[in-house]
């Protein structure tokens, strides 16, 4: 069974540009969570999608947005990039039933210069 895949693995952008990050969940999982992890810190909740809808979002500005497609894959968009957006962005896939066990991708390392 394929795990969670994220692309790209690394992304370098300049300040003010837009970044698009992608995530494919485990087959059969309907929920996708996005987290931001700044270097050396913990995971900050960004967005939660389930069954194609945004269910909740964390304390981030509106320039962080995303969507979930009918095949449950997801996209995270960050507009007007700022230097402090540099971080590891992690996508987690959850089955949607039973204990909330998250399976993570390897992440996208976004560097804003």
């Amino acid at each position, binding site marked *: 069974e394929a795990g969670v895949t994220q692309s790209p693995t690394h992304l370098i952008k300049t300040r003010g540009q837009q970044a698009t990050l992608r995530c494919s969940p485990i087959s059969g999982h309907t929920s996708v*969570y996005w987290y931001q992890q700044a270097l050396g810190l*913990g995971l900050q*909740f960004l967005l939660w999608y389930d069954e194609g809808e945004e269910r909740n979002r964390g304390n981030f500005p509106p320039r962080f947005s995303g969507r979930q497609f009918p095949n449950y894959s997801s996209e995270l968009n960050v507009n007007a990039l700022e230097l402090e957006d540099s971080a590891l962005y992690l996508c*987690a896939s959850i089955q949607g039933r039973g204990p909330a066990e998250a399976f*993570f991708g390897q992440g996208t*390392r976004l560097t804003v210069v």
Partner: protein
Amino acid sequence: TQLLEQSPQFLSIQEGENLTVYCNSSSVFSSLQWYRQEPGEGPVLLVTVVTGGEVKKLKRLTFQFGDARKDSSLHITAAQPGDTGLYLCAGPYSSASKIIFGSGTRLSIRP
């Protein structure tokens, strides 16, 4: 304010020693998960605890869920350098059903 508080934040011990890290909350959780994350990679699920008072063992790792389901602990016996990493606890936050993570305990095992 973190809903899940982990302690200690950092721990550096000698190989062969025992250690315990904690995950505490003032809220009740239906389940708690423990993850380990190595640098540059995503967290990997270690265990899920569901029942108050539950104890689960994974080789040298022992996980316990508090009776009131507000806290959990992870005990490692005879730590090895391969245990090095960031240990995170997480759980579904009941009011919004989103999954929240503690800030983690960064563990370093010296050979």
